[in-house]
């Protein structure tokens, strides 16, 4: 903080701050708080599926005093709605775009801050009201939204079809619209910053892949969100002013089109930044440049572009014309090509490298493994005849979570272990980190792998008690295993939080560049002061120039070393 005249107070430093790093960390803390709701609701779902209609531990008696702590069927519908909505809109999207985008973009392009710091602060401060609106549903008549995170009409538009239809669904729509505006403002800022504020010499093809991925994700947000907002406005006016867009006089299926036009690209919003992070982490910790930099950039662009042409594959059972279904099947299958390039790019980067098995590296490797697994089941799901059979079963739930947990969340963990020294000036405990990885990796498949099998056996999602059907009664045992794994997986994350708490106080202090990495954020102090860089940067190399044959001095920083002006 060499250039600051007067030290600002605690409030203006940490709360009403315009500094991109603080805003990034605000997104991080906010998402961690929202994770409590997302995680608790998922555990409650698992509890019900393992031990249906028994007293729910910890929160049962407080939530259901009239039944002695036993959940109600209506509450189960609230659980899966809140779990999906909170995890997507308030945990993974804010972490991957809000935290990574704000914290990393200016640092990695050598800028002092975002192009519009005020707009940036606004994009964060719209999130708490959005979260409050989401949770306000719990106190409205009938309870929180319970039409699923996809909010299909007529379930979502009628006030009588679900308990949450009375008031909670309206709050849900307000919440989604607010968080959509926040993301749009953020995306405008990210794109402008990357286009305009790159350091001298930092050409487009010298950008780290993380920045490319965040840039492409911002374009996806910008193009997809307005269409979701359009659908949201129609649904809101159906509920408030009795318009007929999605009623029997209108077309309920129109919502599905509008929702998935955003909803599918949203999947790439949460996977592309994780891919970019993993590329960078793989390269730094394998001491080798990435294999196929340009193919990777073009593949991410192709995934994003194709992402807008595939939404119909969510609607194969909606009664669409089979020839249209075929078109969507083909466009979806095409995505396997660029997605395959990204995986080969990761594996080929490792070939002939000198891997340092750090916690960050392990999570990046875990990403590659789990993304392949989830990706292959996705490829299989694109086939319309297969999808018609497994639609709305646990196959889809398993596939989706392999991508979003095994993919995005593993990418987030890799990012956290990799950039924690930059954010705090201290290393994390490597041993605890590796232990955290080992348990998380095994338990991830413990939770999500068997979902494919029970899905093929026919178990539908969103069913509070599948065992009332005789043909599903034998599925309780695999569900029991899934639930036990889920509880262990949640508890295992305590290691991560213990590690953070310990490292913040006692982690080894580090200098600017503890990983001997090349990209520009490692030129700044750890943690970087206001304005980020104490000297002018001139970039004269790409971010991936490593020499695996050497053990010392095997990296070449992107910025030329010149004395301070």
């Amino acid at each position: 903080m060499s250039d600051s005249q007067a030290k600002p107070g605690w409030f203006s430093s940490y709360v009403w701050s315009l500094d991109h790093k603080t805003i990034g960390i605000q997104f991080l803390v906010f998402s961690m708080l929202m994770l409590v709701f997302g995680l608790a609701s998922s555990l409650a779902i698992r509890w019900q599926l393992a031990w249906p209609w028994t007293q729910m531990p910890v929160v049962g008696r407080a939530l259901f005093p009239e039944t002695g702590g036993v959940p109600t069927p209506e509450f189960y519908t609230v659980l899966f709605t809140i779990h999906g909505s909170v995890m997507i809109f308030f945990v993974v999207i804010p972490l991957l775009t809000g935290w990574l985008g704000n914290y990393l973009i200016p640092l990695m392009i050598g800028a002092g801050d975002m192009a519009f710091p005020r707009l940036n602060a606004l994009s964060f401060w719209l999130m708490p009201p959005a979260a409050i609106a989401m949770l306000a549903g719990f106190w409205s008549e009938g309870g929180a939204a319970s039409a699923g995170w996809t909010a299909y009409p007529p379930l979502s538009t009628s006030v009588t079809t679900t308990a949450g239809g009375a008031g909670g669904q309206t709050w849900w729509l307000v919440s989604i619209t607010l968080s959509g505006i926040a993301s749009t403002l953020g995306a405008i800022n990210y794109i402008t910053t990357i286009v305009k504020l790159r350091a001298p010499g930092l050409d487009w093809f010298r950008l780290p892949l993380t920045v490319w991925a965040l840039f492409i994700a911002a374009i996806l947000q910008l193009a997809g969100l307005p269409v979701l907002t359009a659908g949201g406005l129609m649904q809101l006016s159906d509920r408030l002013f009795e318009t007929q867009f999605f009623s029997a006089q209108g077309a309920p299926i129109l919502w599905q089109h509008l929702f998935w036009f955003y909803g599918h690209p949203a999947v790439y919003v949460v996977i592309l930044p994780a891919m970019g992070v993993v590329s960078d982490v793989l390269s730094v910790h394998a001491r080798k440049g990435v294999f196929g930099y340009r193919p990777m950039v073009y593949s991410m662009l192709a995934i994003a572009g194709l992402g807008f042409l595939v939404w119909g594959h969510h609607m194969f059972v909606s009664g669409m014309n089979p020839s249209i279904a075929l078109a969507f099947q083909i466009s979806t299958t095409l995505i396997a090509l660029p997605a395959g390039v990204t995986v080969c790019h990761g594996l080929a980067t490792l070939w002939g490298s000198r891997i340092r098995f750090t916690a960050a590296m392990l999570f990046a490797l875990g990403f590659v493994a789990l993304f392949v697994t989830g990706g292959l089941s996705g490829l299989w799901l694109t086939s319309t005849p297969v999808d018609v059979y497994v639609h709305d079963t646990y196959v889809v739930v398993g596939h989706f979570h392999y991508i979003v947990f095994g993919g995005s969340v593993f990418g987030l963990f890799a990012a956290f272990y990799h950039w924690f020294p930059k954010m705090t000036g201290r290393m994390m405990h490597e041993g605890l980190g590796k232990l955290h990885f080992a348990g998380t990796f095994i338990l991830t498949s413990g939770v999500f792998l068997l979902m494919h099998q029970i899905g093929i056996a026919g178990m539908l999602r969103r069913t509070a008690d599948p065992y009332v059907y005789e043909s599903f009664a034998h599925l309780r045992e695999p569900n029991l295993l899934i639930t036990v794994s889920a509880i262990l997986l949640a508890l295992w994350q305590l290691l991560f939080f213990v590690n953070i708490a310990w490292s913040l106080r006692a982690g080894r202090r580090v200098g600017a560049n503890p990983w001997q990495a090349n990209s520009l954020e490692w030129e700044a102090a750890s943690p970087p002061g206001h304005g980020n860089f104490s000297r002018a940067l001139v970039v004269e190399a790409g971010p991936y120039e490593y020499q695996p044959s050497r053990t010392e001095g095997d990296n070449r920083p992107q910025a030329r070393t010149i004395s301070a002006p």
Partner: protein
Amino acid sequence: MGGAVTQATLSGPRIEPARLALWIFLASEALLFAGLIGGYLFLATARGYAGHEGALSVPMARAATGLLVASSVCAVQMERAKARTTLLRWWLATLLLGVAFLGLQIHEYQVLLEAGIAPNSSLYWSGFFLLTAVHGLHVLVGLMALFWLGSDAVRDGQAGLKLELACVYWHFVDVVWILLFALLYLA
């Protein structure tokens, strides 16, 4: 803007950050209307609209269109104004014509509601009211931006970048209206 980097040292194209950001914003706004208009057209093909003919006054809508286009023209004159008095004159004209457009819209809503036509009357009226209301909200936001940034410009004696960008937004709102006019009143 924080940081020591200056325009001359950067790698990016020579466009002001605010101008770039505005065009990106307009792209997302265009997609919002694309979603709404796309939905309107989807319902037209899936269900068809009937029973609303004759309830709308096309001459009045044509007048409203004229007002908004005229306002856009005045906005261009305002940007080009060299003297404070000309700037002030065109600024007031832009605002007044915009307010008159909103006034006509509100009047039209009143006429319709008095005739017993509401958003829940039919599928067509659902689309009509939502599209015009969302557009009207954009007109209101545009007027507020023109008022606020225009008053700064009048004080400074010349239009700066911010007012110029507000005018670009204003033209966008105008273009969207022309589309809506064709779609809702003439089709």
